[in-house]
């Protein structure tokens, strides 16, 4: 039975369950089963077209499914599937940075 590891930030939508066991044959089926069990998790995993959101990566073992067969990647009984949210940020927001750059260009242009 394959095991899905639910990321900590999404466990408030899975009744605090950290793992989910499934006999699904593919990633797509496993995610469908997870969403059936915990419907509140769906908007955090899937976009409006029912595709896995761009900022969510899925790993089988240590392999990103984008380098395998995507959501049709097959699962084995001992597969460990990790749902991985993007973790990123930074000190300057993009609009602010663009604004600073525009001012810089403006200053240069005026000199």
């Amino acid at each position: 039975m394959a095991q899905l590891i639910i990321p900590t930030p999404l466990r408030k939508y899975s009744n605090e369950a950290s793992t989910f066991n499934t006999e699904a044959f593919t990633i797509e089926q496993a995610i469908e089963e997870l969403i059936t069990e915990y419907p509140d998790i769906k908007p955090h995993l899937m976009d409006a077209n029912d595709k896995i959101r761009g900022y969510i990566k899925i790993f089988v073992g240590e392999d990103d499914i984008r380098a395998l067969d995507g959501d049709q990647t097959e699962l084995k009984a001992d597969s460990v599937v990790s749902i991985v949210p993007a973790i990123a940020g930074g000190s300057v927001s993009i609009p602010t940075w663009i604004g600073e750059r525009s001012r810089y260009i403006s200053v240069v242009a005026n000199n």
Partner: protein
Amino acid sequence: MKLIIQPSAEETMKQHAIKDFPDECCGFLYGKESDEARIIETAVPVENKKEGDKKRRFEISGIDYMRAEQHALKNKIDLLGVYHSHPQHPAIASEHDLKQAMPFFSYVILSVMDKKIDDIKSWKLNEENTEFIEETIIYH
């Protein structure tokens, strides 16, 4: 909810932020949580994998995140958040931080000015996941 940061975790974050200056550093925060407080017991540095401007951006790789979750499960501790530094900027969560933020996590930000720690603040998404709320930090 109060955020209690234990001394060893605080020291790890500070040293990492100074070492990586003028780039942003990042890492994971582990500990435990009760109804009254969230306690950060350990900070674990990871490499900033952002391609390009690391002075203004950080990114944690999917593999590093996956290993962090597995580490927490194996050791029966909670992955409670991430920390990162803001070199030459205040410890205020940016619009970019907000866009990338996940529910539940504490986002501890260290402001580093001229290679010295200037301020530390922690932020967490509100229930609607629409804005950051500052957490009260207690050093213990």
